[in-house]
């Protein structure tokens, strides 16, 4: 059977459209399911109280606070390192074998399975540096994991600043570093911010890297120092859904809701910043 070309095109485009729906609609389904079942669990107490009765009642405050500390620590480590690396790649390095090796290294860090980061974090931070299972170990592990996100997006942002900006600054007698600081980075800021926020979202949602480096099963108090263990939202959701029997399904959905809101909010902010500045770009 052979269709005339215009009809064949109509059929093909329709099939492609349906395939696209199969990819995108589940996102809405997941969000709908979690919002519908989770929003009822959200109350002031749920967000600000300690878990009670073996996590079957009470709130999820320590998990929220733990995730906040872990993400803050990861960014504190990864942002300066990643930003400097991006500056090196776009402003200093020539196209040599070293440059290529760095690029391949970044691709590989991005591809390492998350649970392998967990093993690595355990071997290096927990056991070799003797930080123990702690916020410090977990943050550093997550920080290394989000390094590629930050380097790649910062580099793209810096590369997108026109060369003329640098030439003008250099011709006015500014040093290379002053040029980067005052003529390049301010214009790359939205892109760097986007990458950082995406990194935050990624770090907040990952479970496997923190399994052996920081996550506490049940710790109904807030961490006192960076050498304390902590609960974390994604691990808490894992524990609630597979390790603790007879948990009210509302608490599970509520925890998933809080985690999803944090992660998707980060991504929405990043998408908004990006499209806002893309449309406003003057060059």
């Amino acid at each position, binding site marked *: 059977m052979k269709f005339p070309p215009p009809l064949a095109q109509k059929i093909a485009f329709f099939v492609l459209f349906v395939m696209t729906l199969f*990819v995108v609609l589940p996102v809405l389904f997941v969000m709908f399911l*979690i919002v519908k079942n989770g929003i009822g669990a959200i109350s002031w107490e749920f967000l600000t109280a300690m878990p009670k009765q073996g996590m079957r009642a009470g709130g999820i405050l320590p998990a929220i606070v733990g995730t906040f500390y872990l993400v803050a620590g990861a960014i504190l480590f990864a942002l300066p*390192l990643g930003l400097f690396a991006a500056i090196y790649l776009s402003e200093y390095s020539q196209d040599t074998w070293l440059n290529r090796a760095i690029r391949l290294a970044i691709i590989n860090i991005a591809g390492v*399975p998350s649970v392998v980061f967990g*093993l690595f974090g355990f071997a*290096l931070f927990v056991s070799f540096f003797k930080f123990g299972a702690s916020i410090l170990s977990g943050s550093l592990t997550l920080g290394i994991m989000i390094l590629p996100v930050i380097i790649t997006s910062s580099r793209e942002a810096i590369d997108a600043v026109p060369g003329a900006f640098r030439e003008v600054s250099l011709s006015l007698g500014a040093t290379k570093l002053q040029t980067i600081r005052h003529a390049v980075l301010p214009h790359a800021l939205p892109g760097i911010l986007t990458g950082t926020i995406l990194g935050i979202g990624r770090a907040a*949602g990952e479970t496997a890297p923190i399994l052996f480096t920081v996550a506490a099963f049940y710790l109904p108090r807030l961490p006192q120092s960076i050498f304390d263990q902590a609960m974390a939202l994604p691990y808490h959701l894992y524990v609630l859904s597979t390790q603790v029997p007879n948990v009210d399904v509302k608490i599970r959905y509520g925890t998933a809701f809080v985690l999803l809101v944090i992660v998707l909010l980060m991504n929405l902010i990043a998408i908004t910043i990006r499209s806002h500045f893309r449309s406003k770009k003057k060059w």
Partner: protein
Amino acid sequence: MLKIGRFKETLVEGIIKTSGIASIFVVTLIFFFLLKEGVFLFKTVHLHDFLLGRSWYPISDPPEFGILPLIYGTLLVTAGAAVLAVPLGIGAAIYIAEVAPPKLKEILKSGIELLAAIPSVVLGFIGIVTIVPWARQFFHIPTGLTAFSGSVILAFMAMPTIVSIAEDSLHSVPKSYKEGAYALGATRWQTIYRVVIPACSSGMLAAVMLGIGRVVGETMAVMMVTGNSASLARGIFSPARTLTATIAAEMGETVQGSDHYFALFSIGIVLFLITFAINMTADFMIHRKRK
């Protein structure tokens, strides 16, 4: 004054250069520390028995550390996910890159970005409350915690990768190719499947490989929905256990310095090497065409 400024400049530039090569240092460090712990297993277990041993009984006496059933579980789940994710992902990429009107295109791209952002533990949870009971009822099997459930969830984790890389490679096809086809009287669809897709086939292949790499490395969702039973010669509608889930599930129970502990690091080395090979090959294919 000038001297101090000069010194500061040199210092900061030194930091920048050091940070630049930090990525290479980190990759080396990851591999070194996996190797440092994992290599001790091979004092007692032969490499051949580790890779091709047919049973994984790490806490029996004597223990057995054969990862073949785990490799089989990973292959089974990955193959199932690929069957779903590859056609859908490529189809969606073609629609988004070539067919969708600009407004819809932006919305669809954001949707795919959001799919990529959903944490794997949340997808695992959704799998437990939806696909697992559905699969049990629909296929009349004793438990829905099967390789099949894992494949479905993993397919959705692979799709964003496949779509975005395939879309990039579709965009990289020179405009003149398309204009040539239109000038010869081809329809848009004829142009897409006779000219555009063949022109970026290596990029498409790279997209598929990176999607598969994502699936092989996925941990939490797959551990939550596949039932974690390590056994060879079982089908897609039975419980399975992957390499990643084994590490995540057992690491907490091992004694540091035991053979079991070393064996989990050896699995980590295997995973690291698999994803390393996939990423290198995919990168090679993406950049081959530009020469």
